[in-house]
């Protein structure tokens, strides 16, 4: 069954936007813009999921990545407000500095890795594209909320995902404990100093902890 041209065009456009914005994420100097561009890259990604009949995963992609994770990224980046210093390449590391990667060398290594991966995967992809039919999945409820919840929670004693699900909750617990532990580190007097009600110039660099300064 041939794919309808609407799907083809949508996919091509999404792929283009994903590629361009992902490239721009790495090339843009301003970190806040890079974050915004990453969000831009996530939206067509979710579109691709929807084209693959996984509408729920597509919405989750927006909810979790664009909505939650990138929001926190933006928040943190704004709070520490980093700006590239003069003579520093956006890829990090000083230009030609001793021991550090210069931008060119990093790009070269990246290209090598990408090339190797492409050589590894392209035959596989080509094989898959020539073998697998493109007929849409006819399984009822495919990619919908109900079938996903069934996949996760049905028959817990034999479901391969039960343990994973519980382990993820431990992971989150660990994250919470760790975060609380660090945010509670400072005493009450330090909290008064850094309270956000003082002048912003003093209040904003909250992340520059005294821990990082020499004793």
């Amino acid at each position, binding site marked *: 069954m041939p794919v309808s041209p609407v799907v083809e065009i949508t996919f091509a456009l999404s792929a283009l936007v994903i590629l361009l914005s992902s490239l721009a994420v790495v090339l843009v100097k301003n970190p806040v813009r890079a974050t915004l561009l990453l969000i831009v890259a996530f939206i067509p990604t979710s579109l691709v999921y929807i084209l693959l009949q996984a509408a729920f995963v597509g919405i989750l992609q927006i909810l979790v990545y*664009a909505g939650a994770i990138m929001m926190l990224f933006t928040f943190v980046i*704004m709070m520490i407000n980093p700006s590239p210093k003069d003579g520093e390449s956006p890829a990090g590391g000083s230009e030609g500095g001793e021991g550090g990667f210069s931008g060119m060398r990093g790009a070269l290594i990246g290209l090598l890795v990408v090339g190797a991966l492409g050589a590894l995967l392209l035959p596989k992809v080509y094989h898959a594209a020539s073998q697998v039919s493109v007929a849409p999945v006819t399984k009822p409820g495919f990619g919908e909320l*109900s079938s996903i919840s069934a996949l996760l929670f049905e028959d817990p004693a034999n479901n391969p995902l039960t343990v994973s699900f519980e382990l993820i909750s431990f992971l989150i617990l660990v994250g919470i404990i760790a975060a609380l532990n660090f945010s509670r580190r400072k005493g009450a007097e330090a909290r008064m100093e850094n309270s956000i009600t003082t002048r912003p110039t003093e209040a904003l660099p909250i992340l520059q902890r005294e821990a990082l300064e020499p004793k």
Partner: protein
Amino acid sequence: MKAYAVNHPIGDMIRGMLPAPWAAAANGALAVGLIAGLVTVMAIFLIWLERKVCAHFQARLGPTRVGPFGLLQPIADAIKLLMKENLRPRGVDNLAYFLAPLLPITGSFLVLAVMPFDHDLQVVDLPAGVVYVVAVSGLGILGILIGGWGSNNKYSLLGSMRSGAQLFSYELSLVLCMLLIVMASGSASLREIVLAQQGTVLDWWIFKLPVAGLLAFALFMISSTAELNRGPLDLSEAESELTGGFHTEYAGISFSMFFLAEFVNMFASAGLGATFFLGGFLAPRFGVPPLDWALALLPGVVWFFVKVFALIFLYMWFRWTFPRLRIDHLLSLEWKFLLPVSLANLLLAATLITFKWMLP
């Protein structure tokens, strides 16, 4: 996923006038047009309503005098805003500064796309509608964050930081309330949620789950007030401390975009509240046949708007009667009170649903 005709008679008429291949596209065009129209009219109407309510609550004179019933006040406001120059302060980040006002309004538009106004009056009925609503409303936070950052103004930045912290936090208890409703209805589609509340008034989720429903409604109202950045939880604006919060630097049309988004958001939020707790477009039934018959005469869309405006009035009532909270109080309220209560309420509701301890 099912797309509904915008409305039977009018939709059919328009579709009939178009050649066959265009008829299918007519639905989308009509839907978008209707939503856009609704948003504009609604915003103007809500501004008027807000000013009236505020005037009556706090004895302000202006809004009661401009035109009959003060009806011309929003028009005066709109003209004033549109005539102003769209300023670009020095040192702003162009992209962020001009992108920011567009995001919140986009988010609220997208929410309205799944809002069930009536049985057949819904742009699209997503099976995971509730998740979708949460996902797209994130755009609003993004707009406020980058707007505050892009303005290159410390008040704006502080306002958007506060707003970010506040919105992230209150989103948790809001989502937990939504989860409760999804659990009770057994579906995440907004239409299915409404249809699950068929029956008498006692079958609405606010009453049907004893205690849990009412508590969830209260939590929903409080946390959505915070999500809307409305008083008494409007810490991101807080004009007494931050001049104007994240939109300090905005003027003219950019500012009015934020302003518009705020009102449309209020409408969307009240719509969600009505859908989740008050039976959405269903006419209220009391089990008294003649009364029920009379009430059912009005179409569902009217009932939807009646419920929505009841909730909007509640929001306005909050805003003009309570004093503003302090930022640390606001955050402790969420993390130390609302969130634990929401979690406990979710457990309670799960128990009630599992053992079917619901009103008949």
